[in-house]
């Protein structure tokens, strides 16, 4: 625990205020969830690099910054948010500094019985459903940031897909942080429930409009029931001084499919965890990721896949591109439980280092307690392929442009695979602009 008693006291005071403000409106179970979250946060404290899980990511900067809970700011115009709206046809929930803004959202036309709205509104209409699910997938006693998020649960997205329903329009959750005179924190909490035989596509975007320091500490829980299909995309594009800490917890039931596509493209200090439990037979899970860092950015990507039952497949590919003095961390655990025979798990982390000062700590891990499984994992760290560089140059392309093209190509292998056209184009544009390449 980082000794900063003043700050801990401050968070404690803030929690007391927050709690008092909301207690009268909140059901007892929610008050309990917040209290329990705070208790666990107090017990765990901010992690230090002496803890294995945090060995390569020092959060001292977060622990020592006195964040105040972000207040809702003056209203944003549609023009301001338009660069982040991926597709006008998508269902959209917009949050500014963690607060839901209905005027910027588009929630109409969800199919029969499906609910796509903000969590605090859903609390009024669907209390039992939320009580049954909220906090169910987050249990790790040591998860300081998730506990802090639970302590400060106020709003986020709520999606409920009732049995047999297919939501064809992707659901875009847009979280915007705006300028504040002093450091602020928001703790978005998202709950996605896909009931049996359903289908949904969720996109989480995190963007910053501010020049100052702020913290986004998000938790998303996704329950994927029997035979359900959920595709999850995340675009992390916080601004230059943004700290982004987030966990996505997923539990999959029998023969369900889940895919996660994570793009870490912004922020100063970023830690993202995706934690999937394959809790019944015949599940399939794909976790892909791309992190691109330069300057002094620090990006930590952590995944855990628990193969708890037999006959499940998981595929994982994370790629990183690190330039200048940036630092990347990849930690991927595949845990195959004794019962999980016939597991097929593939995991790979590939990293491109573009400067001598960039650093990657990569740690793919397999822990296998079943004896009839097929598991592979690996990590490669490299520079630009000189043979490919020569090939491009021998076709007239200048060295600078050829290098940019090869960086783009490396990243694009992940982006190319995206089913959602608007997301793919958004990422491709980011990649092309980032490499100063002309449009396609």
């Amino acid at each position: 625990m980082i000794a900063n008693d003043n700050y801990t006291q401050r968070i404690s005071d803030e929690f007391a205020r927050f709690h008092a403000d909301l207690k009268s409106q909140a059901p007892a179970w929610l008050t309990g969830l917040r209290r329990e979250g705070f208790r666990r946060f107090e017990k765990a404290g901010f992690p230090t690099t002496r803890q294995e899980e945090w060995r390569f990511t020092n959060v001292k900067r977060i622990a020592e910054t006195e964040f105040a809970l972000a207040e809702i700011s003056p209203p944003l115009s549609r023009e301001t948010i338009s660069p982040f709206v991926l597709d006008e046809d998508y269902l959209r929930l917009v949050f500014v500094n963690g607060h839901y803004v209905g005027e910027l959202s588009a929630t109409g036309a969800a199919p029969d019985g499906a609910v796509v709205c903000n969590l605090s509104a859903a609390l009024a209409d669907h209390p039992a459903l939320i009580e049954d699910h909220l906090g169910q997938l987050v249990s790790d006693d040591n998860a300081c940031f998730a506990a802090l998020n639970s302590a400060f649960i106020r709003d986020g997205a709520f999606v409920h897909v009732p049995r047999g329903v297919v939501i064809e329009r992707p659901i875009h959750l847009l979280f915007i942080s705006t300028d504040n005179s002093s450091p602020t924190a928001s703790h978005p909490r998202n709950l996605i429930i896909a009931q049996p035989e359903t289908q949904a596509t969720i996109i989480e975007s995190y963007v910053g409009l501010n020049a100052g320091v702020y913290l986004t500490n998000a938790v998303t829980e996704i329950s994927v029931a029997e035979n359900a299909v959920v595709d999850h995309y995340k675009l992390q594009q916080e601004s230059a001084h943004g700290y982004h800490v987030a966990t996505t917890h997923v539990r999959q039931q029998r023969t369900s499919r889940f895919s996660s596509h994570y793009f870490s493209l912004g922020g100063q200090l970023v830690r993202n965890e995706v934690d999937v439990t394959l809790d019944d037979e015949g599940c399939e899970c794909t976790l892909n990721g791309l992190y691109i860092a330069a300057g002094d950015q620090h990006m930590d990507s952590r995944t855990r896949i628990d193969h708890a039952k037999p006959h499940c497949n998981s595929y994982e590919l994370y790629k990183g591109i690190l330039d200048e003095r940036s630092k990347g961390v990849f930690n991927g655990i595949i845990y195959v439980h004794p019962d999980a025979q016939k597991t097929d798990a593939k995991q790979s982390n590939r990293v491109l280092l573009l400067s001598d000062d960039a650093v990657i700590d990569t740690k793919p891990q397999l822990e296998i307690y079943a004896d009839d499984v097929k598991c592979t994992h690996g990590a490669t760290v490299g520079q630009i392929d000189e043979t490919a560089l020569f090939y491009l140059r021998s076709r007239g392309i200048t060295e600078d442009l050829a290098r940019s093209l090869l960086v783009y190509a490396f990243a694009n292998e992940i982006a190319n695979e995206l089913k959602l056209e608007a997301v793919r184009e958004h990422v491709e544009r980011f990649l092309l602009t980032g490499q100063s390449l002309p449009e396609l």
Partner: protein
Amino acid sequence: MLEIKDLHARVEEAEILRGINLTVNAGEVHAIMGPNGSGKSTLAHVLAGREDYEITRGEVVFQGKNLLEMEVDERAGEGVFLAYQYPVEIPGVSTKYFLKAALNSIRKYRGEKRSDTGEFLKLVKEKMKLLGMDKSLLDRGVNEGFSGGEKKRNEIFQMAVLQPKLAILDETDSGLDIDALRIVADGVNSLRSADRAIIVVTHYQRLLEYIVPDKVHVLADGRIVRSGDKTLALELEEQGYALVEGDRESVLSPT
């Protein structure tokens, strides 16, 4: 167009080219043949600008300019094109994007205007038809998952789009079946013109039945040991490289 004088090149301590002299005029097709390890591919790569080789002596003048002083991409801008024996796969960059970048880079080098998308696509589709290639290739990664034959065909396709002044084909025939060989040869033949020179580097005479050369040179031990017209290739076919082994003896010990 191209004048190579007393060219010596080595990799680390091994001297591979030991005094090449060769003049190629516009409109001509030259075949360079020779046994494995004779330096054929090295010559092709040295002309394209590969940096693994150290030029220890000699000069190469291309259209009045010192080719050896130019960067790799400048050589392409000047009109040099190497069709690779082993083309590189670049997943993640579509053939379309790659070719447009190449074409516009060369145009920029020459101070010409950029090709717009409409004009570019028209050019590309016309050349694909010439080589019997499927349009879907444009959106695939460069050479990604291609068979050996497809890669070679793609090299000639690039050559057709970029319209070089000097094309060097490095063992373009190796590993091709007869159908693929014909397509590739037809593509090359369609590019023969009065203002373009082509150097065909090959181990086998077979390709030269389809791309009939004006001159044939035999390379052995880093030197051109014999030059002649297309009949030299036939002679080699009949007698094998023993023919030049004998010559080499006479070169090495002129008694």
